[in-house]
């Protein structure tokens, strides 16, 4: 980047993105044995990052949330016209806020939950590197810049799963790595093709939406296809989701939380931020396919959940189903839909993150997550039991809690997709008919969601403890868990009661964007 640019050095976004890495560098200098110092350093760093982030969020002009704000645009790699372009608007803002919240909570949770084989130093450094990668991805307005941050995220997570994961961690981490790398390869090819085929020779996400229209329809389809697979793996969409259950199940608790809360959103964010605005025409051609894969994901994920015997794996599969709702909403290419998708992303992040937290703490206490062996959590650790109850209710989309506002508006938007008369490749059925079928299927999906989640809650929390744990002392929620969980629980309730906190921010960005996307 152009270090001489004053713009770069005065922008708070720069500091928000790089403070975590600086913190990580400082931690490198502190000896490994001094774990407390590392925890304090990591917490302070993440809190400073959050503070800078909050200053950005408060300086944000919400009356014109539709515009990209705090834009910095300087040279970065002039050789390929890749620039350091960053900015925040109504779409990225909720995602940034989510990241800023989750990371400190994960650090707090790690205070007394450093997973085996220990080494708080390395573990916390990885979290901070992840922080930079995630925040960078959400502020990047240049394709190469986005790609770099996207890849920065990959490595720490790979090591987190591979080193601190469960029994089958090596398989899971490699699978995660190769899957994502495969997606990244397609993604970078798509980006490069945009660079050349648009004739604009730019990677700017601000400029490309207008310029990419000159690409022939055939090439648009090819490029969008690349992004579809690339982002689709990250979401994950059926049928390229199979890395997720393994990665989630094997990852340490904090890894699962970050993975569910933020990393999965990089995929859907990519669709909303990059694929659809730049190639709306192609998006309309793929619309029915995305919708179809989304509803398959909803039902398929739910069915797989019903077949699970392990609590964490069940939650992992539920992500496939829930992200199906997000993708269905995106596939409608309507303002309703995209708003619902962004809400759904935040809600899923909080709720599934919460579920993974509880699963992690359950595992720590019972040393197993096998549903058959659990039971009576409400008796042994009542507070944790009720927190699990709240999280499952939120996850099954109970109105009044956050999950509902991702799910219901998604179903709503499917009734009336953009480009309704378009005759799809699916036996030539029009989009309208197809999406109404999707709507009904998605509504039925809510029954399955209730089925597996309540099954989980009944077996884990209700009843009496099994003989093997009957006399075991099971401590209830401890101090660090409270600190880490309360903000998430409060947000789940607050967003559920007053959803406008997110909708009012996203709507003014999404509405004009979708007008453009629908109009072309």
């Amino acid at each position, binding site marked *: 980047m152009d270090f001489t640019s004053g713009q770069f050095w005065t922008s708070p976004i720069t500091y928000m993105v790089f403070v975590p890495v600086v913190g990580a560098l400082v931690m490198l200098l502190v000896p490994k044995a001094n774990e407390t110092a590392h925890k304090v350093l990591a917490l302070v760093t993440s809190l400073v990052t959050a503070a800078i982030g909050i200053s950005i969020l408060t300086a944000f002009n919400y009356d014109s949330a539709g515009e990209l704000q705090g834009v910095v645009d300087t040279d970065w790699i002039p050789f390929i016209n890749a620039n350091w372009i960053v900015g925040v608007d109504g779409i990225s803002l909720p995602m940034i806020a989510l990241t800023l919240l989750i990371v400190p909570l994960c650090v707090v949770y790690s205070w007394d939950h450093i997973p085996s084989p220990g080494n708080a130093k390395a573990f916390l450094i990885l979290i901070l590197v992840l922080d930079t990668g995630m925040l960078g991805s959400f502020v990047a307005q240049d394709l190469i810049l986005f790609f770099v941050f996207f890849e920065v995220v990959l490595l720490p997570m790979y090591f987190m799963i591979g080193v601190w994961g469960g029994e089958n961690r090596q398989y899971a981490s490699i699978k995660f790595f190769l899957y994502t790398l495969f997606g990244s390869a397609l993604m970078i090819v798509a980006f490069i093709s945009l660079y050349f085929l648009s004739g604009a020779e730019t990677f700017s996400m601000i400029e490309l939406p207008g310029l990419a229209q000159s690409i022939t329809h055939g090439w648009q389809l090819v490029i969008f296809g690349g992004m579809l697979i690339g982002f689709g793996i990250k979401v994950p969409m059926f049928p390229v989701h199979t890395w997720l259950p393994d990665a989630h199940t094997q990852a340490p608790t904090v890894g699962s939380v970050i993975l569910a809360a933020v990393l999965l959103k990089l995929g859907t964010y990519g669709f909303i931020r990059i694929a659809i605005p730049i190639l709306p025409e192609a998006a309309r051609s793929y619309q029915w396919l995305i919708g179809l894969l989304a509803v398959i994901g909803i039902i398929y994920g739910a069915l797989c959940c019903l077949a699970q015997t392990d609590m964490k794996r069940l939650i992992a599969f539920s992500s496939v189903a829930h992200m199906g709702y997000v993708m269905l909403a995106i596939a409608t290419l309507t303002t309703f839909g995209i708003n619902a998708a962004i809400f759904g992303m935040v809600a899923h992040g909080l709720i599934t993150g919460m579920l993974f937290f509880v699963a992690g703490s359950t595992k720590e206490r019972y040393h197993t997550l096998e549903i058959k062996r659990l039971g009576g959590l409400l008796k042994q650790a009542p507070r944790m039991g009720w927190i699990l109850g709240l999280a499952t209710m939120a996850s099954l989309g109970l109105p009044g809690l956050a999950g509902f506002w991702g799910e219901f508006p998604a179903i709503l938007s499917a009734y009336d997709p953009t480009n309704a008369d378009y005759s799809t490749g699916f036996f030539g059925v029009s989009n309208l008919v197809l999406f109404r079928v999707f709507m009904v299927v998605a509504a039925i999906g809510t029954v399955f969601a209730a089925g597996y989640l309540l099954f989980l809650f009944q077996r884990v929390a209700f009843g009496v403890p099994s003989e093997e744990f009957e006399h075991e002392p099971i401590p209830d929620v401890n101090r660090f868990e409270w600190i880490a969980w309360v903000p998430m629980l409060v947000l789940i309730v607050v967003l559920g009661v007053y959803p406008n906190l997110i909708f009012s921010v996203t*709507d003014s960005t999404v509405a004009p964007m979708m007008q453009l996307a629908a109009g072309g």
Partner: protein
Amino acid sequence: MPYLLDKVWILPAIMAGSFLLILFFGKKLLARFGEKATASIGIASIAVCFILSLFIAGQWIQRVNHPPTGADMAAAEEACLGPSEVAAEEMGVEVYAPAEHGEASHGAETEGDHSTEADDGHGTSEPADGEATTSDEHGAAPMATGESAAAATPTAAAAEPAAEEGHEEVIPVCASMTWFESDHIDFEVGTVLDGLSAMMLFTVTMISLLVHLYSLEYLHKDVRFTHYYAFLSLFSASMLFYVLSSNTLQMLVGWELVGVCSFGLIGHWWEQRANTDAALKAFLTNRVGDTGLIIGVVVLFFATGAASFNVFFQNQQALSGELNTTLLLIAALALFWGVTSKSGQFPLHTWLPDAMAGPTPVSALIHAATMVVAGVYLIARMYGVFWGGLEIGDSSIHYVAFIGGFTTIIGGILAFVQQDLKKVLAYSTISQLGYMVMALGVGAWTAGVFHLFTHAFFKACLFLGAGSVSHACHHTFDMREMGGLRKYMPSTHKTFLIATIALAGIFPFAGFWSKDEILAGAANGQGDKAYTLMLVMGLITAFMTAAYMGRAYYKTFRGEYRGHGTPHESPKIITIPLWILAVFATVIGLVNFPGHIIGAVDDAGLAHRFEHYVQPTFAFPTDLEVAPFMYWLAGLSLVLAGFGLAIGIGYFAKGEPLKGMTERNPLARIGYVFLEKKYYLDALYESGIRDTVVMPLARAAYWFNMKVLDGIVNGLGVAARKFGTVLYRYVDQGVVDGAVNGTGLVSEESGQFLRRLQTGKVQQYGALLFGAAVILAAIFVLTNAINA
């Protein structure tokens, strides 16, 4: 002025506050000051709500007696319809609106929103005062114009003809705020106060208050006393929130919140598997119905112009006759699918009897008097939609009326074969809910809602009476272990008997009046068509209801005591609520006293007060006919009920003369087993659908996931590695080596490679990245070539 009516949100807020207080401090209070301290938070809150709802009802009566006119009326109407019309036109959707409404302002708004700059350029806008403020902010525009339209239309709106039967049009009192916005539409959350919701407030708070008091004794020393009272408060809050909802989306929220309270309370004693199974069944069955509700809400939203979920707006649209009737029918049927589960209609009624696993006061409050009527309330609230969609006014049979009638019968029959007192009452509730649905189906709106009202009191009385009995008989509900309790429990016996007679529909108890109105409604029908089949089903049920209640009454209170120990009367805290409810069960039917049976032909004075104050006049079908009182029908139903009661009691008094017939007669046995298995519906759902369709599908999906999808992934990995090995062997080259290892990692030996990687051999990782970079470079060149 309606100083309370537009602030009714206070009621659910009080109960929500009570819930939070009990949740956070209940346990501590209980430990320090005992159970009463914890319970008193809930009791005080619900008592305040009850008093407030009395005031509210009084104010509503005032409002009906002296309805606002002119500008006040127009303002009230605008508040109730919300900013929907404006927003709809903004979307470019054709929307029906009463012709008088300020068209000009809407047109101006449409333009103003899209071209913010050129706003002041066009002069079509008549009410220019509101216009000036609209253009700056997209979000605020519809609201502001809504106000300007209100200012523009007072005279026009006031000129609308008054509704039928000499009722003046009384506009409900509405209040709202923005809940969220999407696509520049403001979606609101708000309250509606009209006769219907005022009636519901009264019913819910009163029965909830009595149940709160009763539970003090019934749940005394319960393991989860605090938890119980917290849920009672949360339930009351949700139910009040539901009945005050100003839009369908909000109703959906309240609907599911009461459902989750029901779940929590059915599973109150969650140590036993049977209880949690019942709770799960209730929740899941309701979820099945909720899919219908969700779809109905969505379809209705789009059918009425994709602008608003507002109930009055949607009713008005549905009644305009300008909507797509097929869509409206789909919406009505989908909504009814939700009603089917929540209000225990066939075929989704199966959860309700199982829900009796919860504490008895909960059964009285939630599963008899209030929550289960949420579905009936939905039909009553969205009556314009049902009226328009099902063409109730021009039909003699349709799905809703038929299902209602059918449910009354199948529920009633099952009540005969139950040995558990609470289950008898549960099936009776199903049957009576069917009655209400049928009433609304045949166009007898007031009759259906009136039955909801009277039923709440006598059924709550019966359930609480059953609880009192169980309290005395060692916590059993099995009638085989009861009998002769008349001697031991005089108060419980008398109140139970009164409520039984009221439910059976004997003159002059409450049930008689409301049941009779339903039958009259079916006999009269709408237009020139009668709902004859529903009338017949209603009469059959009138007989059955009396008969099974006679049976239950006899087996519990007459004959000789068959249980162990000596039963005793319950303490006053239990019997006083019973007496209050019994008094209501006796006299409450008179609130809709049909005037002309004592010669007063018109509606003046004391006649038809319930109808006068509760039946809406706003956004309600104007051609709805109210059936007159029919002597022959009242007489017939009275004879049938008396006959039923006599048979129900007499059969057991004579020592069950037909006993053993099921053993002797194979046909009778088949019939009995069929009933005992509850028409095999549970078997169909559990064995037929869950065990043979869903679970195998789930296992198949997971097998597909592990064997097919992951098989492909793993296979690719192994293949890549093998390919790599070959390549390595023959093309021994450094760079390729790295890349190959990278792609071949998934095979069994991959662990070793990984360990090396993680233990610090970063060079290999570097090689891997380098390999990837080479591939990318190749692609670069390739795309460049394609471009050129």
